[in-house]
């Protein structure tokens, strides 16, 4: 049980590390680059913006989940 808890905690720590990197990447690259374009879409092409918004949030969710799951499997830390 203790080993399992340790594995789970290690998995969460790794997840946090990965997410911290991704978040930093988002703040300094993606959001900065996308900000102006999305603002333009929101003002001039609302329907396109609505579609892009949903695709972006679903895309981010799938990528974040897949990347961490893959990495954790690779490390062998996932306890499920």
């Amino acid at each position, binding site marked *: 049980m203790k080993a399992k808890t340790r594995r789970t905690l290690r998995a*969460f720590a790794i*997840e*946090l590390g990965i*997410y911290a990197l*991704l*978040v930093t990447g*988002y*703040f300094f690259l*993606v*959001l900065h680059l*996308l*900000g*102006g374009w*999305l*603002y333009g879409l*929101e003002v001039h092409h*609302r*329907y396109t*913006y*609505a*579609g*892009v*918004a*949903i695709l*972006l*949030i*679903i895309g*981010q*969710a*799938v990528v*974040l*989940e897949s990347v*961490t799951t893959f990495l954790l499997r690779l490390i062998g830390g996932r306890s*499920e």
Partner: protein
Amino acid sequence: MFFPISGAHISPIYLVIVGFLVGILGGFFGVGGSFIAGPALRLVGLDWNFAVGTDLAHIVGKSVVAAKRHRALGNVDLRLGLIMAIGTIVGAEAGAQLIQMLKRAGNVNLIVSIVAIVVYLSISAFMLWESQKTLRSQKRRSSKEKVKTGIAKRDKSAFGPTTRAIQRLKIWPMISLPTSGVKAISLWMILLVAFVGGVFGGFLGGGAGYIRMPSMVYVLGIPTHLAVGTDLFEIIISASYGTFTHAIKGNVDILIALVMHTGAAIGAQIGAISTQYFAGPKIRLAFVPLPLIGAAIVIYTLFTGHKL
């Protein structure tokens, strides 16, 4: 950090932390968590319309992560989720129309507030009574039985006889839900539960997960773990629809939602994985404070006039 779409200056760390907390709740209870995220966005000066629309967008992302995790754990009934999504969307439109009618009558705030308080308090009181009664009877039946992964999903409820009576109602067409262990149930009953949840969502705001998740357990007889996972799957569809309609009205700042979601994605995974370690009645007991928080926010708004 400046967000050009809404014109707001908000700390990204604050957004990530709010997303993380709401993510845990969503992953564990199958709720959108708009009763926390909405006020939290308002607190940092985001306009109400942006708070509602942006929160919905972030709920989509969080629900994708949590539903994927729940699906890996075998907690998602796709057939049930798809049927419920139809009822929820129709119900949400009906709820929005109801709001418009009340607005024309000029007493929307008071009526919505009173309905919300009564509904939230009733859900909390009922779930407290039911989960405690179920836990007591389980303890009496087998004090030696330990909660393991498999056993935790075998769900029992003190409301079981009523649920079985509802399942016996033969209103054509009858469908089976093998993933949820329901041999036959009227399609209309599922649509009705989803519709009522949708109406409350449209009427009270948010995804109304704290109405739909208990309804799935008590009315449809879905095991708690599956109700949580399936509700999250259903939220992906209905919240996407809500995000789209809000976005074309200019109520969504997707940049804020993306930042919030980076925190929510971890929280949702932690919440979803944690459900493995709790039996259904314990999840339902832990659920009790959620509607109470919703009721407290409505009471605060009613008495102070400040919308959180």
